[in-house]
């Protein structure tokens, strides 16, 4: 009983000891904030990866692809059964994207992905990342008149969004204006004079009677090429103040150059019309992918068997039921499919190095921050020695009243423990409050310093994502309390070993 009472009184009267736990408090708060933000970013990143990549992907090891995706999907359903909630075949090929901008051709490396618009959104959040509201509902690769998002629809707080003024023009409006412009600056074919005509007539050349060259009947003002959805990073850049500048808009034409199927691959080109942008906010995807309809892709690359009409695809993306064990399904599929022909991976496997790097980073940060708390432990140790010396007479008094050595030791251990509780408790409260208001704090700091702390221009996210894991918080608190107790062990032993008579004589 006296231990608790004395601890309570010591806690309330020894402010120096409270000072020693400020470092514990700060350490705990920092650990909570760092872990929450790291978890938040990791979760955000993983969520987007999973949204982009679907759950499990079976990829043909050859770029030629696998024949008959329907048969493959039937087999997958046989193996994975009820876990499968969605499947879509995709085809992909590395390609060069070429577009004309301000009198110059730009060529960029891309991955062209052929998708089945009907089923692709069932395995990933593909639709959500498009810029036209109708395309988000149903993607048909047709250019829209207008109505492309000017404000980013993924933002939660519209005040922070820089409007994309250029997108107001996007669509048929833009395409017609372009076509009109091209027509005006186009060089008219020279008018043939009568003399020349006669000269041609007298010539015996067989070409003279040949019909005039076929006129280009494609009218860009009213027609489009096959539609494509372009990764938004492929044709835009972001300025320092966070405004997006587009080199291309929906309505512009681009060209892709890619190898065909077959041996040796032929070099093929195709014209496409941009019908929408894809913005997953993961730069590595937004600057890499462009999407076209799967059947168009198969035609272009020659992925249709000319005799049987059987089509080929490169991969089958599988969406699993909520809570299904990804690795178990993957392993079952790996057993079923010949691994020299197919690669079976979960999205985690595909982004393994990145995820592992983030995990390592979190671990190292945690170790470092925990060392800070350990350093705080030495502060407690030093101050506790002081307090034990200061309290020497009290220790003598307690012993003269019949307190055992263990009891005296218990006082200081309990004291250390309660300091740990107070320190960790304050740290938890402070840390959680900081995490809760982290965006407001970032804004405030940004306004005070004039430089945004969390710049949407850099991160493609409008707010700092945070996740508080109760398990992590508990673990941090227990660690901090343990350190406080450990730091008080030595002073407590010293107190317990004091001789009552000498302690009483202490001045």
């Amino acid at each position, binding site marked *: 009983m*006296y231990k608790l*009472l*004395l601890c309570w009184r010591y806690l309330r009267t020894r402010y120096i000891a409270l000072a020693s736990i400020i470092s514990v408090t700060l350490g705990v708060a920092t650990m909570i904030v760092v872990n929450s933000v790291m978890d938040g970013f990791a979760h955000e990143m993983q969520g987007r990866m999973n949204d982009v990549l679907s759950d499990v992907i079976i990829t043909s090891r050859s770029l030629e692809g696998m024949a008959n995706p329907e048969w493959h999907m039937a087999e997958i359903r046989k193996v994975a059964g009820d876990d499968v909630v969605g499947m879509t075949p995709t085809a992909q090929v590395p390609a060069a994207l070429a577009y004309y901008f301000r009198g110059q051709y730009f060529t960029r490396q891309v991955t062209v992905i052929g998708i089945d618009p009907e089923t692709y959104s069932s395995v990933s959040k593909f639709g959500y990342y498009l810029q036209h509201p109708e395309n988000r509902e149903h993607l048909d690769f047709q250019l829209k008149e207008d109505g492309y998002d000017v404000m980013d629809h993924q933002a939660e707080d519209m005040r922070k969004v820089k409007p994309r003024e250029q997108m107001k023009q996007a669509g048929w409006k833009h395409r017609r204006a372009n076509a009109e412009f091209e027509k005006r600056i186009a060089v008219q074919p020279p008018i043939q004079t009568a003399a020349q005509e006669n000269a041609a007539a007298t010539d015996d050349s067989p070409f003279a009677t040949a019909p005039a060259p076929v006129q280009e009947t494609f009218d860009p003002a009213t027609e489009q090429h096959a539609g494509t959805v372009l990764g938004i990073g492929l044709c835009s850049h972001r300025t320092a103040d966070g405004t997006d500048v587009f080199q291309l808009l929906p309505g512009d034409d681009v060209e892709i150059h890619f190898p065909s199927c077959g041996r040796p691959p032929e070099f093929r080109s195709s014209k496409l019309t941009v019908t929408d942008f894809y913005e997953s906010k993961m730069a590595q995807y937004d600057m890499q992918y462009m999407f076209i309809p799967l059947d168009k892709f198969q035609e272009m690359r020659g992925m249709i068997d000319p005799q049987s009409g059987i089509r080929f695809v490169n991969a089958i993306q599988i969406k699993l039921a909520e809570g299904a064990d990804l690795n178990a399904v993957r392993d079952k599929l790996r057993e079923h499919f010949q691994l020299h022909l197919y690669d079976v991976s979960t999205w985690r496997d595909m982004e393994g190095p990145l995820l592992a790097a983030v995990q390592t980073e979190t671990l190292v940060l945690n170790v470092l921050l925990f060392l800070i708390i350990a350093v705080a432990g030495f502060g407690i140790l030093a101050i506790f020695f002081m307090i034990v010396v200061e309290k020497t007479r009290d220790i003598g008094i307690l012993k003269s009243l019949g307190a055992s050595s263990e*009891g005296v030791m218990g006082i200081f251990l309990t004291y250390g423990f309660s300091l740990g509780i107070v320190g960790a408790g304050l740290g938890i409260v402070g840390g959680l409050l900081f995490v809760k208001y982290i965006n407001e704090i970032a804004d405030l700091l940004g306004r005070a310093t004039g430089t945004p702390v969390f710049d949407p221009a850099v991160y493609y996210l409008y707010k700092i994502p945070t996740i508080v894991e109760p398990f992590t918080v508990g673990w941090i608190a227990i660690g901090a309390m343990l350190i406080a107790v450990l730091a008080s062990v030595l002073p407590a032993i010293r107190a317990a070993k004091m001789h*009552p008579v000498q302690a*009483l004589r202490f001045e």
Partner: protein
Amino acid sequence: MSTTKYQPLLSASGVRKVYSKGEVKLPVLKGVDFNVAPGELVSIVGQSGSGKSTLLHLLGTLDRPDGGEIYFEGNRIDNLAAAGRDILRNRHIGLIFQFYHLLPELTTIENVLAPVMIRHSVLSYWAKRREYQERAKALLETVGLGHRLNHKPRELSGGEMQRTAIARALISEPQLLLADEPTGNLDRQTGDEILEVLRRLNAEQNLTIVMVTHDPNIAAGADRTVHLAEGRVQAASQAAA
């Protein structure tokens, strides 16, 4: 004093204590023989350095003698294990000191309750807390401090602190009260008042008191005075029984 079937409450025989400072051995007690009968008020007097405080610490089991034996109610206590000595100090022997030795963080009543709190765990103390608080209040009334229950020691005068210390020593209803210079730090009048309190406790509750003092005036208030010089009991001057 009755002579039939005499059993002393406290007895010391041949108690020796040597303080060593490095190589130098300094014998303080050289064989003290000493008995205290139940209900006696004994004072031990002697010059500074005569070992009277040391003797009191040995009797109060705060320290161990280097030789000799000490008996309390017929049981040997000088060689008891630490736990036994703790219990003895906690319940059977009350101690008061020249410098009062109150715990500065606790109020008057909490200081008085300290030995009971030491004895009990949180739960068993909680169960009996009213009873103990009543008893502590009653004790403080007895020593004349009923009006200062919730003051911290630094707000009390020397006499009040010593009264608190006496109340604390009595909370466990000990058979024996050992007092080390209880008036040594007080002025004459306050010292007399404290002595009066001790005499009253001795008379009314038949409490056995052993009191160390260097003040012959205070010593004269005791039933019996033991003179300590050069580490031995010199002569016992018997007062009226």
